């Protein structure tokens, strides 16, 4: 008989992929009705552990017990039957089906009967109301909901299957501040109902606000566990990266020079309303505001992805009319997308190919690729950025989030851009790699590149930017110099009605 005080007990779990030990003798315990933080840098083994729990991978050695009974999780179906549910960052929802259908997707067609729409609607409504989200229409197509509401539907779906353990993998990465608050109250409600929750997040403040206990992993090994109330942020960071993090935002020594990009009265159909700003060589300009306030949309217009209806864009003293990204890239503008996997990288192609994609002219001669030179070139570039990888002809998706992001950076650095827009540059990146990315941004500014950072993390904006413009509803509602930059001012402008 195992220890029955734990809802979940994972004991001495190991998992090996080829020559790499992804998990090495890791143990985790979670009590009923407890919110447990799973902490570690990218590549520490969190994802592997979750995938073992959800049945996507099988463990090599070790034991899993639930409520004192040893269980065998050999497939996702086993996990589901045991009441283990995972909410990944990419939701497992059918966008063209309604909310109600999605919630009851596995109970829709039973024994050749027709769907009882009335009952389905009723049940789904009740479920959502229990969670405090009765305002979500059960007949709306899921694809038309906001990301936050899609997440709620996903959670609701799992709960109808009597989930005893709910695993949330970086659930706040896609949410705005107010949405995060709502999600947290929902998680606390579930805790009261006795559901055990495993919460994965890179945000220390979220862990301290929400979680009861924690387990820290590093390089696939167990480091420590305990109660959150007994530790400080610095303790956790120390355990995660194995060293003190003296400076989250490293110092920058850049000379601010002439205006590189100047935008005047820019308007576009979608969320860009009379936007004007400029950014200088060596300057780091922040773009703050809520998700959907028009920051990304503005950059897409400047970059030639979307059309402008009016306004003037001046780049290096010359008016430009980018009609497609090629026009912008040729002039020396780079845009690192917020969505690394769908808009940034070729996830199934090699590290090498991704690195030189925006600067093929550098490694080709009359259209022919100089393979040997390219390998040397990529090797140098990536080592300057201290990127960790096995072989540069490995696929990008074999890398951790932080290293993937460095490949995206390398792509634009290689293109010799005069101005680079970084849209959420540290999303899905762990603390250690974050600092490295900030250092890279600083280095670019020191080399005279004009940098624009779009970020929903206010600490990042405050720590990194010389000047910040705040957007709301497609307009610039405020511009804040470094000396006045604090969360209060940003929020004030971000929430400004008109």
């Amino acid at each position, binding site marked *: 008989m195992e220890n029955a005080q734990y809802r979940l007990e994972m004991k001495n779990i190991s998992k090996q992929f*080829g*020559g790499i030990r992804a998990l090495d003798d890791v143990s985790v315990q979670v009590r009923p009705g407890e919110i447990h933080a799973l902490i570690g840098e990218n590549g520490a083994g969190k994802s592997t552990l979750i995938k073992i729990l959800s049945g996507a991978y099988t463990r090599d050695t070790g034991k899993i017990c639930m409520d004192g009974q040893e269980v065998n999780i050999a497939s996702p179906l086993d996990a589901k039957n045991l009441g283990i549910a995972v909410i990944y960052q990419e939701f497992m929802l059918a966008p063209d089906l309604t909310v109600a259908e999605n919630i009851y997707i596995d109970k829709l067609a039973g024994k050749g009967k027709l769907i009882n729409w009335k009952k389905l609607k009723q049940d789904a409504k009740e479920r959502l109301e229990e969670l405090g989200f009765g305002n979500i229409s059960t007949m709306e197509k899921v694809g038309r909901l906001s990301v936050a509401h899609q997440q709620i539907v996903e959670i609701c779906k799992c709960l109808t299957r009597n989930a005893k353990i709910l695993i949330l993998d970086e659930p706040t990465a896609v949410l705005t501040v107010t949405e995060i608050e709502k999600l947290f109250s929902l998680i606390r409600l579930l805790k009261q109902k006795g559901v055990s929750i495993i919460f994965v997040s890179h945000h220390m403040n979220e862990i301290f606000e929400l979680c009861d206990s924690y387990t820290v992993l590093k390089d696939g090994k167990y480091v420590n566990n305990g109660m959150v109330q007994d530790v400080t942020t610095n303790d956790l960071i120390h355990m995660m990266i194995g060293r003190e993090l003296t400076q989250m935002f490293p110092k920058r020594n850049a000379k601010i020079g002439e205006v590189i990009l100047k935008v005047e009265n820019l308007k576009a159909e979608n969320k860009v309303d009379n936007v004007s700003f400029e950014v200088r060589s060596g300057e780091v300009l922040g773009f703050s505001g809520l998700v959907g306030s028009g920051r990304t949309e503005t950059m897409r217009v400047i*970059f030639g*992805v979307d059309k402008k209806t009016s306004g003037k864009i001046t780049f290096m003293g010359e008016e430009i009319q980018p009609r*497609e*990204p*090629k026009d*912008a*890239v*040729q002039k020396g503008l780079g*845009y690192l*997308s917020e969505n690394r996997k*769908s*808009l*940034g*990288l*070729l*996830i*199934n*192609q090699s590290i090498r*190919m991704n690195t030189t*994609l*925006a600067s*093929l002219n550098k490694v*080709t001669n009359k*259209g*022919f*690729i100089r*393979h040997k030179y390219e390998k040397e070139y990529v090797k140098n570039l990536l080592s300057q950025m201290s990127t960790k990888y096995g072989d540069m002809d490995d696929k990008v998706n074999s890398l951790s989030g932080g290293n993937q992001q460095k490949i995206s950076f390398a*792509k634009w650095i290689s*293109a010799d851009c005069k101005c680079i827009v970084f849209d959420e540059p540290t999303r899905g990146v762990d603390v250690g790699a974050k600092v490295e990315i900030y250092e890279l941004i600083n280095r670019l500014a020191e080399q005279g590149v004009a940098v624009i950072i779009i970020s929903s993390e206010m600490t990042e904006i405050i720590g990194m930017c010389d000047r910040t413009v705040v957007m709301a509803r497609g307009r610039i509602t405020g511009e804040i110099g470094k000396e006045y930059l604090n969360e209060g001012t940003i929020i004030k402008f971000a929430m400004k009605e008109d």
Partner: protein
Amino acid sequence: MKKNNKVGKILLDNNTYIIFLALFIICCLLSDKFFSYLNLRNILLQQAGPILVAVGMLMVILTGGIDLSVGSVMAVGSSLAAVLMSSMNVPWGLAILIALAVGVVLGAFTGFLVAYLNFQGFVASLAVMTIARGIAYTITNATPVNLKSGTLNTLTSKQFGYPIIIITILMILIFIILEKYTAYGRIVIAVGSNSEAVKLSGIRVKRYLLSVYVISGFLATLAGIFIAARSNVGNSTIGEGQELDAIAACVIGGASLAGGKGSVTKTVIGALTLALIGNIMNLLAVPAYPQRIIKGFIIIVAVLLQVVTDRDKQ
């Protein structure tokens, strides 16, 4: 253990070649007529066209598209070259060039629909498939066009060293180089893995999308001309179902229909694998209809092996 893994990986990576080699040996054992100069030469002469079509198809598949029009475009190549020569007394060299130009235009039309009007490759090429077949029937009145000796069939003559085999090998080499050693080839593969990301990297994706259909149209026309050369007859009914064989050759060669993955060399081997299967069954006097059943199953087996390879790599 580790060494074992490595050997296993090499075997899986090259399973296209291994299957082909195994099949080749089996063919040698099954029929003593198989491994003869005459038979092997005939296979090459027969397969020159289908190989080219498969290579063109691969370029389209690499971008994540598909070109169903190749069979019909072959018919246009064959018919048009023949009609120009027999009814209009165009010299055969010029007739070939005109036919190729028309093939390029047909490919460009499909490509335009895909790249600039956002048609799905399947739909655009389905339409062009019907159009091209209609053109072939119209210009020949759906009857075979006989050609004079010493014209197109020069391409298959021994005296000049079997030009169609030489041209095919040349084309294969060009496309191997294009795929592996040029920026063009790399971008085509990149477009197939994530066209939006490629566009945002400052590359004019539409032009590349258009170009692969042009290539496919060109190679299909050339294949049609080769087939006309072998029989010295222009024919509007050739190439029916050739698009499916071409797709099968790509898939046996490990290409992914989702795009971004495939190899010219392996596609050529894939086409030859299909050819061997057909050839040995003919030698063993298996009737034509059961041949298709067997061919279908062999495609399934080949694809299953590819799936295993992919899973292992993950």
